[in-house]
């Protein structure tokens, strides 16, 4: 890997400069403020980009042009939408549980934030390298469902309540598959730390090295994580043709915007994990063969951040493709799919992967 693309040089430099100026606690607080500000900017930017991308991709699937009035190619459309939502009146229905109603957007937004903290987007571009990285993300994202559940409940609206219930049952079920699919890959990486997982793929991505079980795990993960983000054919929490808007029927203005934004940031998170586990994160495309040294070297010249975001974009595109092609599943079918198909397959796939790992039958 080319050292010039390593962000840790930049961050380390800043850290040293700051340490020379003030006490360790002050350094930490300063860094926190800087990182926090950058993170908010990043999330806001990603939200704007992803929403626009979703609309553009949807438009092209549907033979439309998509937003094209505000800014070049409609690039400022989401910004305009955000400003509109920001300046809308906040309405709370009179029978709602005000405290829980206002709490829900916080919970919903907090979980992707915590998850983003451990994701390395490029070499050195990671807020904290936790030794249980992936497991931390699954643990945190399991709380996100509570935001939906509480929001649906607190609105005191029948559609919201049904939507919230559905979503909760679905998300908790699919969490199992997400975790198991991740653990299947962890057998190979032997570590939960995301940076170590990436490092273990320096000679080739796991989806190539781990062949069949890795491919199955990828499909299972993709399906389950699409469900966990309440997207695509699994969006029945907000199934508009049945429940008008599902759990966020009563949310308007900026509160709705946070529900909306969290969906997209969650999508970014799950796509990043898929990228890291199966496609080597920011690791360039390498072939695990002797003769491919030259090829591997050429690949190194493309910066890691390009690789990282390129692969994330690919996974997100897949999820968008699902969403704009498939009809929605019914709640009992969703639970069926998880408990009768994904979960048993995951359990078997886990053992298969363990067998392959032990037999050394991987590249």
């Amino acid at each position: 890997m080319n050292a010039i693309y390593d962000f840790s040089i930049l961050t380390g430099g800043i850290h040293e400069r700051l340490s020379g100026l003030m006490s360790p606690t002050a350094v930490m607080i300063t860094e926190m403020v800087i990182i926090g500000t950058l993170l908010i900017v990043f999330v806001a930017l990603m939200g704007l980009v992803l929403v626009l991308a979703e609309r553009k991709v949807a438009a092209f699937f549907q033979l439309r042009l998509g937003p094209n009035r505000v800014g070049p190619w409609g690039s400022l459309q989401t910004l305009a939408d955000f400003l509109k939502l920001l300046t809308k009146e906040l309405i709370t229905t009179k029978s709602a549980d005000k405290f829980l109603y206002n709490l829900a957007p916080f919970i919903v937004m907090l979980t992707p934030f915590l998850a983003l903290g451990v994701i390395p987007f490029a070499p050195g571009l990671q807020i904290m390298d936790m030794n249980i990285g992936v497991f931390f993300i699954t643990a945190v994202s399991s709380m996100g469902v509570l935001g939906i559940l509480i929001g649906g409940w607190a609105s005191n609206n029948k559609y919201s309540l049904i939507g919230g219930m559905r979503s909760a049952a679905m998300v908790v079920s699919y969490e199992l598959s997400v975790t198991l699919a991740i653990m299947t890959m962890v057998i190979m990486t032997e570590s939960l730390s995301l940076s170590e997982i990436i490092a273990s793929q320096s000679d080739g991505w796991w989806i190539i090295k781990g062949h069949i079980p890795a491919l199955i795990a990828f499909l299972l993960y993709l399906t389950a994580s699409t469900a966990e983000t309440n997207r695509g054919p699994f969006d029945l929490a907000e199934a508009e043709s049945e429940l008008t808007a599902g759990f966020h029927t009563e949310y308007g203005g900026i509160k709705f915007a946070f529900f909306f934004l969290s969906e997209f940031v969650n999508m970014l998170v799950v796509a990043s994990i898929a990228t890291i586990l199966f496609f080597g994160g920011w690791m360039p495309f390498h072939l695990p063969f002797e003769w491919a040294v030259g090829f591997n070297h050429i690949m190194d010249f493309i910066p890691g951040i390009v690789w990282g975001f390129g692969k994330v974009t690919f996974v997100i595109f897949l999820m968008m493709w699902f969403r704009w092609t498939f009809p929605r599943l019914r709640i009992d079918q969703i639970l069926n799919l998880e408990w009768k198909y994904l979960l048993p397959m995951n359990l078997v796939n886990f053992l298969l992967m363990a067998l392959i790992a032990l037999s050394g039958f991987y590249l």
Partner: protein
Amino acid sequence: MQAELISKDGTQEYFVNMGPQHPSTHGVLRLVLTLDGEIIKRVEPHIGYVHRSIEKMAEFDTYKQIIHLTDRMDYLSAHMNNEAVALLVENALEIEVSDRVKVIRTIMSELTRLASHQLWWGVMGMDMGAITTFLYAFRDREMINDIMEETTGARLTMNYNTPGGVMFDLHPNFQKQVKEFIKIFKTKLPEYDELLSGNIIFTERTKGIGKLSLADAISFGVTGPSGRASGFACDVRKTNPYSAYDRVNFTEILLVEGDAYARYKARIFEMWESISIIDQLIDNIPEGVIMAPMKAIVKLPKGEFYQRVETARGELGVFVVSDGNKTPYRVKFRSPGFSNLSVLDHISRGHKIADLVAIMSTLDLVIPDIDR
């Protein structure tokens, strides 16, 4: 009151209003659902939000003027509605229209049916969550609308039929355009199957849902593709042929399953049949006058008249009681949607809310048709 709400296993019943402002009721239909959890125990349709009393209005209009009102009932099969009134007057006065008019009417009817089924298909997909189908359906429907606009001067409420014939002659481009459309649409229709009909999520959601038996279909008077999916041979084009339907070969689509998927399939099959009918007629439209000689003021003889046509939704009946004046004494439109709606409660009990959406889309309700 509270005690009544509690069902047998201790949980309480839930009343939910679906509509009038709801995305999947396709208009201002209001359904009051009684739920037990997510299971539907009762569906009670509340209609009349777009009631305009067309029947009362028709009592003050001459027969020519009634036709434009029928445009606004089932606006997706406006041409067939027009045709019903026109045929009624012609049959009552025993006027023979020219072959050209008959063929034009048949082609137009089938084009309208295609357009209606295309819109239904797009909306059906959208109701099931596949929003992309909507745009694909409108892409194809747009071609038909353009053809219609060129000849009749309007895209939806055409008012093209008059007693004795049609208002305008075909546009010179008509034949060419229709042939081109048929050629394109024959390649697009298989895409409908690939995108939705075969999709495992879609089939799982519709097969075995909202089963309607033949006896119930007849008893509820469910006609059109919905009725024929239950095996009810109710195609007016076959039982009481009108216009040029007696000279074309086509199969009456009959299925036996009677569930939502059968109703879906029946419409897809029907699109192929419509294409075949147009194929047979488009090359040999006979020459002739487009208007039979009519008196300026049409007066029907005293008596009662009933004329039925097959619209995209089923049997449309026009019942006219005439007292010999230039305006009818009483007009009744037997709208297919009205009868099809009446079966909704019966077939959706015990299903889930999501199934209700599937059932409603396959019944293909058009609310102005029901409310009139």
